[in-house]
């Protein structure tokens, strides 16, 4: 059967049209933000520079693409239409009349739809894993920097131990299929997912110790929500069956958190050691505040600038790590549309066809670039103050 093609111009128009919900959402968010940028604090200042604008734009673009991926993509990312095997960009599917905008891959799936759906996987795992890594790093870095001494030596030794592992070796050891039969991923998940609960409990406890009316509500909320998510994620025993995670995704998640939390730990520790010499910390000590109150309510808020910048960079770094995992075929299912796996599949066949390789590479690169630009612009803004 002869496949019909549309021209290059129609492909470009087609892609732009497919992204219509994203453009709409971008306009809805960015235009008012730009108008009101003077009143929006740090976020508003991003709109003042070209770099910041580009960073926010790219990040929001991928965010909305992930949110609206079902609407944006014309095909199911896993559906195969045998005729379209290795079809060039612009091939028309005779049955539905839709176009394979970026062509078909070796298994006759739509490259464009896979790229769009890949954003969903990346944008769920990368920020969430970064969030957990931040929690772990902060919760351990605060006491290490504040107390110093033995705690610091032990924690720093452990952090350096993990950092001395080449990332790729760590992944090969932690994310092999066999390891899901052992309790290791669940054990690590059990430890890592405990940190947010501990963090928020201590956070509220130190602040509202003497105001039971508030304390019980906040602490209760933390424990109920945290415990619920914890049960769902670690034991897969969510009573309502809303929170659950596939074993291989849990494994990836744990490996990524494990690989990036020592980095956060080191940054937090350094910041705390710097900030604890300030006068307001001495004032709080003289007032007789508890050490954890000082760490969480005096030091941490003053370390937020570098931490926000680091979080942006780290999401990008985590995205790269996820891509590395996908590239080596570790953890994610082989048919998964995430960008790393797509790059792996396409790069094996670069001699024959090149078009399936480019969309996922450019997608990954642009997303990380957006985050880096955002981080750079945030850093510039915070330096100005």
């Amino acid at each position, binding site marked *: 059967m002869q496949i019909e093609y549309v021209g290059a111009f129609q492909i470009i128009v087609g892609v732009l049209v497919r992204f219509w919900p994203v453009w709409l959402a971008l306009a809805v968010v960015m235009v008012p933000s730009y108008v009101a940028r003077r009143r929006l604090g740090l976020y508003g200042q991003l709109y003042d520079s070209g*770099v910041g604008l580009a960073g926010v734009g790219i990040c929001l673009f991928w965010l909305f693409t992930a949110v609206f991926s079902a609407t944006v993509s014309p095909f199911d990312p896993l559906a195969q239409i045998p005729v379209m095997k290795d079809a060039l960009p612009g091939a028309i599917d005779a049955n539905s009349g839709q176009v394979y905008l970026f062509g078909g891959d070796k298994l006759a799936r739509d490259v464009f739809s896979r790229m769009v759906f890949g954003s969903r996987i990346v944008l769920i795992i990368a920020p969430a894993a970064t969030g957990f890594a931040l929690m772990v790093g902060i919760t351990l870095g605060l006491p290490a920097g504040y107390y110093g001494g033995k705690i610091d030596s032990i924690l720093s*030794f452990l952090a350096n*131990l993990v950092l*001395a592992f080449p990332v790729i070796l760590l992944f090969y050891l932690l994310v*092999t299929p*066999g*390891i899901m039969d052992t309790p290791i991923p669940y054990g690590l998940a059990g430890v890592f997912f405990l940190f947010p609960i501990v963090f928020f409990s201590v956070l509220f406890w130190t602040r509202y110790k003497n105001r039971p009316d508030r304390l019980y509500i906040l602490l209760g909320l933390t424990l109920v929500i945290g415990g619920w998510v914890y049960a769902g994620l670690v034991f897969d025993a969510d009573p309502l069956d809303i929170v659950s995670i596939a074993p291989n995704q849990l494994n990836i998640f744990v490996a990524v958190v494990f690989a990036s939390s020592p980095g956060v730990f080191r940054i937090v520790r350094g910041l705390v050691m710097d900030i604890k010499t300030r006068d307001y910390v001495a004032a709080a000590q003289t007032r007789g505040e508890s050490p954890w109150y000082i760490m969480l309510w005096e030091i941490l808020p003053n370390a937020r600038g570098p931490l926000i910048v680091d979080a942006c960079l780290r999401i990008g770094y985590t995205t790269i790590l996820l891509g590395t995992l996908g590239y080596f075929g570790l953890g994610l299912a082989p048919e998964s549309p995430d960008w790393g796996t797509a790059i792996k599949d396409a790069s094996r066949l670069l001699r024959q066809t*090149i078009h399936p390789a480019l969309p996922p590479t450019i997608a990954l690169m642009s997303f990380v670039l957006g985050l880096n*630009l955002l981080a750079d612009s945030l850093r510039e803004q915070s330096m100005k103050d």
Partner: protein
Amino acid sequence: MLIFMLRRLGVMAVTMLCLTLVVFYMVNLEPNLTKLALSQMDMRATRADQEKWLERNGYRQNFFVRYGQWIGVVKKQPIINPATGNPTARFTFCDDPAVPVYSGVLQGDFGCSTKFRETVAKKLFPALGATGVLMFWVLAVMVPISLLIGVLAGMREGSRTDRTLSVASIASTATPEYVSGVIFTVIFASWLGWFNGSAASASRGITFYNFTLPVMTLAIYGIGYIARMTRASMVEVMTQQYIRTARLKGLSFSAVVMKHALRNALIAPFTVIMLQFPWLLTGVVVVEVMFRYQGFGYTLVEAASNNDIDLLLGCSLVSVFIVLITQLISDVGYAYLNPRIRVQ
């Protein structure tokens, strides 16, 4: 200084001991042993056959005894043939001894690769040599380019050159090896046909044709990072008093940059370059797999995917050693280059 060095070396030894213990534990998990037994026998082997194989080759001995054997503080026992009672070597293809001896890492014996059917040393060191060649060219390309970009961007902060180069280096830090590798292959191998998309032939002889793409791919990610650090350091130096003094006494801008700023601005990037090695190690794995270059990274992936225990342990020992030694060199070198720290 000597005490500092000794302490660092001590911590290094402890770290390596801990890490190899962790790796040893991970590769000896039950699913991994099953995988090893499967890869060593034909696919039809039953569960009982696998168990017998593992038992025969000593994989069922006590965990710490085996770790001790690997290190070289416990004697390696040969296999006793149950029928005849004669001791035989464990793996014949590695010349394993038929008498109990201390033969571990401390004695220079890295063990036996079950995948490549030869000793780990024979496989690992040529691979390291090949990677060394690759690393040499990567550093030879990466360091001068990134320092040049950093200095050019940092000498006039906020200028058009600065902003262009800064965005370019941000873009390069956003391009991991598997992305730039694909893009370069598409452009330079598929479209233009200038270079070879595979470096498999580079093991026999390095040419411009087969080695440019791997080196370019590996260098590009580091360039952005080092350039940004150099820029930051250069910007800081250019605001110092002595630079203003030099300008005010009438030296030309280029003379100030070359003679006064450059030397001080290059201290910080030295540390960054040294600390870049651990990341290069990951990059090496990606690039060697992508371009089929038979080096250390390729060996590591082969070892890991076949659960080749001794080879994987050897690889992790080498990579951990590289990471730790570069950290040490960067600390010592920083103190050496920066007189203010040396005096303290």
